[in-house]
């Protein structure tokens, strides 16, 4: 006997519900994508920026300063406060009324200075909070990881503090942009100053943090100093966060080296420098010369941790609050009035990145990532603290003056830790983008 299918009331209801959910699914799960021509197109009267900074972990203080700068940038973009660098930025398409008529809102994420945590928080801000752009960070490992995520997702990434050559070298992406300088530029800027201070006949010993940024800086500084005639005796890799570096410093004592180059950042820099000074390296005479130490990448916040040990030690930095150009003065004034102390270089680069992105949207007339990429590529600007600057189209790296600094021998305040020795012109730090390889690829709108 043939049995016919006789639908029950419950079965019909279940089937109907399932069919309804199935039909609705594409709009439920991807309405934001398909309703617009690019990911996270702002539909209301606000546009959301995603600030991804280290709020916990070793770089939390630097992250806090980045966040302060972003909040200040949002204020200025929305027409509040004294306007800061909006008063000095040239050319300027922004009007102090948000971006493209929309007020700027923001969400924050905690990178924890860990690549996986940083990617997770960026992903959350893009997918759940609808962030149109991700910016921030205090480590090259994080910057490279998040940049890659933003490329895949289809939003713009404006990196924070990242100094490895790889960020705009072998790991560069079309959707990613870096305002901060890099290790190559540090080497190119420092070399002539080191030559003047210490001559051309020197034997160097490198201690290098064993990760992408450390390798990158070691290579760049080696190339720059060897070109001066310096000999590299040894380059020893040290584990990140080693704490006690004594077992790496003792071999330096009788190695015949007369210069110790510390390719360390953050806590590692504070510890290795403090311990090197305690081991009497700065009081030593080797090869008839005074032994010296060089810290190629300085951060004022970190240098504070090393206390008096930084006095007289050369390094480089992206920006310093004591600069006297109009842009720097305007930013330091705004930041100082708001928070009671001067901004760090991390704060500066983040503030500038937020403004540059907003200005690019305004010039492009849209938030569409590929149009913003077009507006930023090859963009020339001034009044942002480092003189005339180019966002080079070939690798999305900013080219501007680099500062060579020295630990201040006679500080006048707790913030007066570094002294600007030289503002190295952009021509001296410019290089052929081909030397670091990589491919920008295509831009991605995420839709």
């Amino acid at each position, binding site marked *: 006997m043939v049995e016919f299918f006789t639908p029950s009331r419950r079965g019909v209801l279940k089937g109907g519900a399932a069919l309804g959910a199935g039909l609705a699914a594409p709009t439920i799960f991807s309405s934001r994508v398909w309703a617009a021509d690019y990911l996270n197109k702002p539909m209301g009267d606000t546009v959301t920026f995603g600030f991804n900074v280290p709020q916990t972990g070793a770089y*939390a203080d630097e992250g806090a300063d980045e966040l302060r700068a972003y909040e200040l940038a949002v204020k200025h973009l929305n027409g509040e406060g004294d306007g800061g660098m909006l008063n000095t930025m040239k050319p300027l398409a922004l009007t102090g009324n948000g971006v493209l008529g929309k007020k700027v809102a923001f969400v924050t994420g905690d990178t924890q200075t860990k690549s996986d945590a940083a990617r997770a928080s960026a992903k959350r801000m893009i997918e759940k909070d609808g962030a149109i752009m991700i910016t921030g960070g205090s480590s090259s490992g994080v910057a490279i990881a998040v940049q890659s995520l933003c490329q895949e997702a289809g939003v713009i990434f404006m990196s924070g503090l990242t100094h490895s050559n790889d960020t705009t070298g072998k790991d560069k992406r079309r959707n990613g942009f870096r305002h901060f300088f890099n290790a190559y530029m540090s080497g190119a800027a420092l070399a002539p100053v080191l030559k003047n201070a210490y001559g051309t006949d020197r034997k160097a010993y490198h201690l290098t943090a064993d990760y992408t940024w450390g390798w990158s800086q070691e290579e760049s500084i080696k190339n720059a100093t060897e070109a001066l005639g310096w000999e590299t005796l040894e380059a020893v890799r040290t584990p990140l966060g080693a704490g006690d570096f004594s077992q790496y410093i003792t071999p330096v004592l009788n190695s015949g080296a007369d210069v110790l180059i510390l390719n360390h950042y953050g806590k590692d820099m504070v510890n290795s420098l403090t311990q090197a000074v305690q081991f009497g390296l700065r009081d030593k005479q080797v090869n008839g010369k005074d032994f010296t130490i060089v810290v190629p990448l300085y951060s004022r916040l970190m240098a504070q941790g090393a206390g008096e040990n930084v006095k007289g030690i050369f390094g480089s930095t992206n920006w310093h609050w004591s600069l006297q150009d109009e842009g720097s003065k305007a930013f330091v004034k705004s930041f100082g*009035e708001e928070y009671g102390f001067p901004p760090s270089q991390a704060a500066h680069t983040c503030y500038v990145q937020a403004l540059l992105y907003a200005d690019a949207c305004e010039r492009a007339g849209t938030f569409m990532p590929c149009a913003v990429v077009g507006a930023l590529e090859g963009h020339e600007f001034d009044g942002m603290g480092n003189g005339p600057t180019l966002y080079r189209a070939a690798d999305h790296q900013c080219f501007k003056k680099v500062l060579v600094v020295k630990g201040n021998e006679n500080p006048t305040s*707790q913030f007066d830790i570094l002294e600007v020795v030289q503002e190295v012109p952009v021509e001296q730090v410019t290089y052929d983008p081909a030397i670091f390889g990589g491919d920008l690829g295509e831009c991605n709108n995420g839709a």
Partner: protein
Amino acid sequence: MDAILLQILNGLDKGGAYALIALGLTLVFGTLGVVNFAHGALFMLGAFCAVTVNQLIGLEQVTQDPTQLTPWGTPVEIREPYIVSWLGDTGLLILEYSVPVSILAAIPVMIVIGLVMERGLIQFFYKRPHAEQILVTFGLAIVLQEIIKTLFGANPLPQTPPDALRTAADVGVMFGFEPGQIVYPWWRLVYFLFAALVIGSVFAFLQLTTFGMVVRAGMADRETVGLFGIDIQKRFTVVFGLAAVVAGLAGVMYTPILPPDYHMGMDFLVLSFVVVVVGGMGSLPGAVAAGFLLGILQSFASMTEVKSIFPGIDQIIIYLVAVVILLVRPRGLMGRKGVMEG
């Protein structure tokens, strides 16, 4: 030869820190049977005692100079420590010696912290499995370090040794080497001597006093000691306080070597735990011997000559030794028979 001597010196001061932390860790395990993963946090809290004392002694009188303005238009602040304005050169001297002075403050503070930790939390986990003890003490360590981060920030806070001990000693000359051939920081030598002194004091306390004798008896057979009418638990609580003081003092004196930050306890905890395992859980001489042994081994493993043969050996040497010990002699170098061998 000079390189070998330098690495031995390195190993001794590093080993001193390991031994001091491991000593307290193993003392607590031997008496209370608790695996205290918050012990590294006690080292960190000791270090922050030094930071706090330094900040208190260095409290500044802030006056404003209206003739000079900051870039953001407020008068420049002129700061001078109160102690200097009150006591002049004596105030400067006290500031300079703030780390040794901190020891006086750290002892009572660490006793209180130890007792509160033991009475307030750990006593409730004596009869619970080791896994639960580890979880709760590890959680406590995280809470303590987050509190410190909130109060003091995430950046390292450098503490300076007294001026006379800031430079390096020409140790080589004492052993017939050329001047300048073997130099070593004065403060690290002081740290090694301090570690030796504290370790000696703990052993003397346990070996030469009646209190120590009871504690040792309790470690060997808790129930029998109880049958004599002795409240061994109370004594073990005191031992927990003693372990906290030892870890705290190790932290205070380590601050000029390693600028303290909220995470320093965690950095030392894992290594110290390995030291305890290698020395033998509950064995005090084992902890001290293993502390110095592993400190020296770690220093030698960092030599370029060694690393050129075994790349990366400096990173794994301590764990490699622990693995070998656990395989060959699970109770550790000087551990009691049966412990960890079941």
